[in-house]
């Protein structure tokens, strides 16, 4: 663990100890306790989305996939720490906006197009809305947020819209802090 103490994000300092404990307990046979030799260990997505903080979240696969370097959803310890640092209360708004955009971008084309919006809505409402309502909502969202007229939301459009939402930093993607009884 010595290497990680060279990082200067002090929020990570507070969590790294506990995070390594959590990472290890997910697969104790695979994850080594000693990281000084920088082992190349990755945990698959299935293990991570079963964590209690993520289990019920409808966006859990997308969250894990956005932080995964190899694009398949498996996280190394670096990616794991990345994920919790962005999801913590102390990460700044710009960073959260970038990752929120990645999460909602289902087909990873760097745009939130109509198909992405439909998938988002289905996950949000557990498919309770009718097809017409979904179409209507998608059209209105694109109408409201798309500024350069290309029919889909680029990162600039998304960020601009988020900046008008006061709840974003506090409630959305802001507080997935893992629950642990203090000592």
């Amino acid at each position, binding site marked *: 663990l010595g290497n990680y103490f060279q990082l*200067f994000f*002090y929020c990570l300092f507070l969590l790294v100890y506990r995070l390594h404990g959590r990472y290890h307990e997910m697969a104790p046979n695979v994850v080594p306790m000693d990281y000084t030799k920088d082992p190349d260990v990755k945990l698959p997505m299935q293990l991570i989305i079963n964590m209690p903080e993520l289990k019920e979240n409808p966006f859990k696969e997308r969250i894990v996939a956005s932080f995964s370097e190899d694009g398949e959803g498996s996280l190394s310890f670096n990616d794991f720490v990345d994920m919790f640092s962005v999801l913590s209360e102390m990460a700044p708004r710009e960073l959260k906006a970038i990752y929120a955009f990645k999460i909602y971008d289902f087909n990873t084309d760097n745009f939130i197009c109509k198909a992405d919006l439909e998938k988002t809505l289905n996950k949000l409402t557990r498919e309770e*809305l009718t097809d017409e309502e979904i179409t209507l909502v998608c059209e*209105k969202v694109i109408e*409201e947020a798309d*500024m350069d007229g290309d029919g889909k939301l680029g990162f600039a459009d998304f960020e601009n819209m988020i900046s008008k939402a006061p709840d974003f930093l506090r409630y959305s993607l802001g507080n997935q802090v893992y629950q642990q009884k203090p000592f």
Partner: protein
Amino acid sequence: DNERALHTSFHQLILEQSSLIEADLELELQERSRDACAVSWPEPGQGEEHPSYSSASLQILASMPSRTIGRSLGAIISQYCNRTARLRRRSNRPPLQQLCRAARPSLRQYNLDTDPASTTLEEKRRLLVKELLSLSPSQCSHVLLTMPLSLEEKPRAVPVVPCCSPTALPFSCPQGCRGLWYRLLSLLRTAQPWHYALKQIGGRFGSSVLSYFLFLKTLLTLNFVSFFILLAFVVVMQAVYPSAAVSPQPFTGLETTGAGSFTNSLLYYGYYSNVTLNDPCSSSPEGSECPLAAPLLPYNLPLAYLFSVWVSFLVTCILLVYSVSRSFLGSVRSSTAVLAIKVFCAWDFKVVQRRSVKLQCENICTQLKELLGEQSSRSRSQSRCQVLGHYLVMLLAWVLALGLASGCVLGVHHLSERMHTVSAQEILLLVVPFVVSLLNAVMPHLFNLLALWEKQDSPVTQVSVAIFRNLILKTMVLILLCYQWLSRSIICSAEECWETCVGQDLYRFMVMDFIFTLLDTLFGELIWRLILEKRQKKKQRPEFDIARNVLELIYGQTLTWLGLLFAPLLPALQMLKLLLLFYIKKTSLMRNCQSPSKPWQASRMSTLFITLLCFPSFLGAATFFSYTIWSVRPSETCGPFRGLETIYKSGKRWMLVLEKSNPNITWFAWVYQYLLENACLQFFMSAALIAVIYFNIQVVRGRQKVICLLQEQIAKEGEDKAFLIQKFQNVYEQRRRRS
């Protein structure tokens, strides 16, 4: 030179990619000349959108800077390099002569400087490090925190930046020591009171119910501040030098009414002495000479009393205004992108339990349906008859609500007249507080029913209207009570020490309020849940009514502030009440309630709560306090201000004493007389404040206009882009056809 060494992101990327594309195009032309083979384009989605575009155009589209910004490492590094450079240059504005004279602000003004030299990834990293080193530590850490590079990249990108972490220890420390230090830091974070309890509540019920408990915590802080000031400067001093005239009374059973042994205790105004404590001169009889030895640490209690109460009001005011401004800034919403914001920001990531998640999905579904319904009804034009009918119903409902409130107020007035002329027993004094608390508990339910009957357009309006009516009722009742206390025509008319009497009345109101809150929790939540379970087969629990509970808290806090002058230990009582309330409400919530189904925007609601606390509640209490100090005659026989014309005169008297004793500080008296008491200065200050507000409003309006213009420009740039792509496509087609 640093300025020259600025690195561009897009220009470089365009050069890189265009050289790649040219190579690709050549290859493709060669291939096509041989055989028509399909080139797989990297973005399958693009093909569906632009089926007529050739694969080369699609490849170019796919490698446009706006699509690769999140992916290309070089682009990220250069972008952040630019940002840090801009941060550094922020203090130096470009001279006016260089500013563009165009009438419209242009996006092209924000253009990145071009750097023709091509650099590798390593050089880019070095440039970034250089930029970061030239920033201040806090800016540096902010930029590093916001960079979206992965954890592996960051240490490589910035190998030696000693600026940032305030918590990093030098690396020579042994590992165990470091571990201990980090544990201590994490302990500090979790040592905030109720940290785990609040997380539990947020996880199960969401952020809107959590805002009630956070509000309770805020109130506790405010009360603690007032309590501490009064304790340190008034109560402890009087306790150490007890007043000789009063003997301690035995404990009777009447303490709940505030009377009995509490009457002549530290709890009330009447106990406090009006002399300078620890001063041998004051204890000697009138007319005799004072020994020349100066008193050790004389403590002028009346002055201390007045100033402590005034300072605690001032500090509370500052804290409230600060909270209001902070939460107001965070909650200003735009009305244009409502649906988009609802889709992307409505999901509350705090909620982790399965049942709560399911509820949240249902809530969001309902909210989206309501928004769609609202928008379609807005577009649907209503007939004149319907509109008229709607307005009539609204008018009727308002008349009814105001009528009910006035009826309650008149009822309380007559009741107090009857009670206070008849009373000989202490216990009858509890009737008026009982009735007031009963009305405060019952009327909100009636107002809710009224709002249901009225059928407003949107549920948010419905809820706001119900809150507003509840607020009007409480305000009217409190105004009536304040009038009764200050005029003393009904209450405490026969008392010698009327301040103590008023303090006792307030104490009774507070105790009754607490008892009724407990009963309300018991009946409203526990017993209602049992009834619902018996009657309906499915497990439906009562909802936690946030607005009503918050208004009750505000009412209790107003009573505390009103009584601060008359009973200095009232904040302590309020603190005890709030502590008990937290645990009772939390237990009841966990056992009996479900999360609210109405659309609550938690940030907007918490702004509303703190604004309500500041404006009607605190302002009213401050007005009451000012009026009491300036115009009401204190009683002759008790309290620190006995015998004076008004409480304010004690300050004046002290000024005269000060002037006489030390002629060197006449300037202070002059300041007091001409600046604080003069109406001219206050008029001037109000005018200056209004001017500042007007200026800020104009600045905000100007900025909104600039935003509109820039949005138009962005739309035009988008059209430019589409045009250019089409042109490119046409040129390519022509070339292909020719070859």
